């Protein structure tokens, strides 16, 4: 079986992997590179737990052959997390009890990150629509929505 070499930018760092044809970005991240913040949920594009950003836009890494992101910029939750402390979204999720089992959290935060990059002042409905592809079976969603609202306030210097 022929292997190919794929190069892309992962969290700002040039990265090179040797893969069999059509290995998914999810598998590359988790099993080749050990970046396990990106979760492996349904592998059907239905749950959102494997969401990463490709050139700043949310995509589900389980449906993405890694060859398709050659030369593109991929951001995972590891790329958001500062060396010391937490990203404001992580801090807001933590303080608002927006995690329970935590499995959906990386995907939720990556979508929220893309949302706040596009729209620093999203209203509640916009947040709900943005997160509609990310399933959480623990929290009932309310704490997650509050966390995103809270993170928006923090990132906007305290203003809603």
């Amino acid at each position: 079986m022929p292997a190919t070499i794929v190069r892309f930018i992962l969290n700002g760092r040039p990265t090179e992997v040797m893969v069999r044809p059509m290995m998914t970005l999810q598998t590359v991240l988790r099993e080749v590179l050990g970046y396990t913040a990106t979760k492996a949920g349904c592998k059907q594009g239905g749950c959102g737990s494997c969401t990463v950003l490709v050139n700043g836009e949310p995509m589900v890494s389980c449906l993405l052959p890694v060859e398709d992101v050659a030369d593109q910029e991929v951001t995972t939750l590891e790329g958001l997390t500062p060396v010391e402390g937490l990203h404001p979204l992580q801090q807001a999720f933590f303080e608002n009890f927006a995690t329970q089992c935590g499995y959906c959290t990386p995907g939720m935060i990556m979508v929220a990150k893309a949302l706040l990059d596009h729209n620093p002042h999203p209203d509640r409905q916009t947040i709900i629509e943005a997160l509609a592809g990310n399933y959480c079976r623990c929290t009932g969603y309310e704490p997650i929505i509050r966390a995103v609202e809270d993170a928006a306030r923090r990132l906007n210097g305290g203003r809603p």
Partner: protein
Amino acid sequence: MTVQSYYLPRSLAEATALLAEHGPSLLVMAGGTVVMPLINEGVSTPEKVMGLRRAGLSYLRREDGALVIGATTPLTRLLEPDVFPLLREAARHTATWSIRNMGTVGGNLFVPPPAGDLAVALLALDAQVRIVRAGGERTVPLSGFWTGFMQTVLAADELVAEIRVPEPAGRVAFRKFGRKQANTPAIVTLAVHLRMVGDRVADARLALGAVGPHPLRARQAEAALVGRPLDADTVAAVSELAAAECEPFTDAIASDWYRRRMVKVQLARLLTAMATEV
């Protein structure tokens, strides 16, 4: 068996050449939102796959009023302000943000029902499908594109390259009725284009999704609308006809009985709302 070869052609010409070379053994994929779940699940075990993400088919432009959409344009781009409002509305109700960033306009023509909401709006707008093969091309109306469940007029060496959507010339409306507000398979999806002359319907296109093997035009209902005002009697009669002529199925989302019933109810509501438009 796992995939042995994954081709990423850099142009349409390269893509059609690969298709001519490999024929039906080459599985064509655009955004991957249909094909990848099947591969991940082991339902589909292709040896050779061609991905179209780099084939230069992602573009959106206006040409003499018509909207010309490259086949692999992500659904997200249809939310842009210069896109016809009916298509924006349909795109907003198709899948979720991540999936819209991956799923493509051309790919939506190949999505099995009850998915494929955008295709219903394209059908109501009488979209034309540009089909290309190595050394030739043809254009077919979307209304003649599907031949059955997951069956189209495409030959083994042909690709959908572009979709051309004429500018709407009348009243339009879209409604997706599902079990949730967002990220839901449809019970029924409806898209309507009506050209009025005075208070009477001169031309009608009623497109229905999730109630047949592919998006359907309700031809009998359309014929019954032409020449009539959009009054309560007409709306009731037309909705009844559409419900009778659609071909609903039962799945985990809804029964065929309920889908047929909802065609009648939702179409009546949509047409009633359209009647009060000026």
